């Protein structure tokens, strides 16, 4: 309740700043969920492939690592949007 009363007492500019900060945090959270799911799926399938064909593990790990880094780029883009809007 204290937080609501604090929000109600905000002036126009402060309210805009508060909305920008909360929106940026929300956007960063959303931007981190997708890559998290993607990395989980990617690594899970890679582990299956490595267990099924150990002789191809080097190739699988190479592509897995690049896949992880590319997927993580999405989260980094979300993070950059967050620091430009919210920080």
């Amino acid at each position, binding site marked *: 309740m204290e937080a609501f009363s604090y929000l109600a007492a905000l002036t126009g500019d402060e309210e805009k700043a508060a909305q920008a900060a909360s929106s940026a945090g929300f956007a960063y959270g959303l931007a981190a969920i997708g890559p998290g799911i993607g990395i989980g799926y990617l*690594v*899970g399938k890679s*582990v299956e492939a490595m267990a099924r064909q*150990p002789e191809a593990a080097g190739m699988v790990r190479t592509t*897995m*690592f690049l896949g992880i880094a590319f997927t*993580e*780029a999405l989260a980094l883009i979300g993070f*950059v949007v967050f620091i430009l809007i919210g920080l």
Partner: protein
Amino acid sequence: MTNARTRQVEPMLARDDGPAPEVSISKDMIKRGLFVAPLLVALCGVIWGLDGVWSSMYAIAIVLVNFALAAGLVASTARISLGLMMGAVLFGYLIRLALIFLAVFLVRDADWISLPALGATIIVTHLGLLLWELKFVAISLAHPGLKPARP
């Protein structure tokens, strides 16, 4: 664990004792990153001034350390078990994101920081180094006998 009769492999208990390709990939990307860093820093300096220079250097350091941490995590845990590697990659993703957030949060109010320069350099360096490495990896996988020259 491998069952000799049925050749069934339990994925989470298997492990990979072979060489760690992600460490060599990461080393290549770090070398290339240091190679192109002066160009990026100069470009940011032209656009954002001295603040851009310091910010872009900081951003390049963040990206290179992030690659090194990711590779080290995969390489060290894959020797123990693939299940541990999977967990380490997932939690490592969260921890590395938190570390990047912390690294930026600690300097956000510094007088030498330029957030647009920092953000642009993070994205350009990360994607640029990955695409550069991908070219070599794709050629190596497609034509294993014709390994391209490494820098």
